[in-house]
């Protein structure tokens, strides 16, 4: 009988402990990254488009984000990145890079802050990227967003990292 009571108390304690970290997010500047695998994330965040035109793609991204109600924070055509924020809560960065000589890959990554005093969470729902980014983007580009198959999605001319040789002593 006594041990049942102890067990019940233990259960209650566990519940109380569970309630503590439920929404506890102490640092506002922290980012909760997705627990999903890199391959899965890359698949939901990237699409290939049948155009080699980087500027056209960047302009289409900007137009799409503006149409969706984002404010543009940063555009860097040289590096091929666009960063935007929607209603201070949702931040999205899209980057553009060539795939071969005929295609361009667009990868986007979104972070969301559910409550003002909380940390940001990486968005890892395929539906979000598909419905609220790639679908409108492909309409703006008049091109179909092609799923990027894993393994093919390597930037061209990948550069091997080489260890830095120490200067010869003599």
């Amino acid at each position, binding site marked *: 009988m006594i041990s049942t009571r102890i067990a019940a108390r233990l259960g209650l304690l566990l519940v109380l402990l569970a309630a503590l970290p439920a929404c506890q997010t102490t640092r506002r500047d922290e980012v909760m990254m997705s627990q999903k695998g890199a391959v899965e994330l890359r698949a939901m965040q990237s699409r290939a488009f049948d155009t080699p035109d980087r500027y056209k793609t960047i302009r289409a991204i900007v137009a799409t984000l503006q149409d969706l109600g984002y404010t543009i924070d940063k555009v860097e055509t040289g590096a091929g990145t666009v960063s935007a924020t929607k209603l201070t809560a949702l931040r999205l960065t899209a980057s553009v890079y060539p795939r071969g000589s005929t295609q361009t890959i667009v990868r986007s990554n979104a972070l*969301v802050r559910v409550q003002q005093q909380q940390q940001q969470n990486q968005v890892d*729902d395929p539906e979000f990227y598909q419905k609220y980014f790639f679908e409108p983007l492909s309409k703006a580009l008049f091109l179909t967003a092609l799923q990027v198959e894993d393994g093919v999605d390597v930037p061209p001319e990948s550069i091997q990292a080489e260890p830095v040789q120490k200067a010869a002593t003599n």
Partner: protein
Amino acid sequence: MIKKFSSAVLLGGMLLGAVPLVGCMNANEFAKKIGQPPQGAVEMRSLQTRRFESLDEHALLSAAQQTLQDLGFTISEASADAGVLAGSKQRDATESGQIAGQVALTVVMALLGSAHTPTWDKEQTINVTLTATPIQNSKQTEIRVSFDRHMLNNHGHLWRAELLMDEKIYQEFFDKFAQGAFLEAQKI
């Protein structure tokens, strides 16, 4: 005894799983809610867009920059390659009526024996994004401008963020802009 013990732990475990669900709104769900196209996206587009008889995108962008500066915006981002300008301005959003209302409410609540923290709009930030797009197979360039704002209350917390849908704001911008660019804006 063991059965009771394990069922108690099981109950605790179930609650343990349930509590975080109630405690927090799912980030993905929230992102999908916010990420949706704004209501009235079509009207908004026509409100925010004008076409100009010019192919000189850079001249239009610099005219736009001057118009935004005239309106008190600070330019935070400009990319001629992408045809983008972005900026913001802060403005005091305090309204005496709102403060009076909040103070009156605090007094009434205090009389009823309850504490109410008076809260009112303190400061608002207006963001602007402007894009220039040449129209294919024509001699026109499309300018789209969009404004949004967020309000901080007197406790320094964000409590309202919205896209500006007021037609007057956009009309005023394009009137000023057309004067600056010596161009007649065409509604689309």
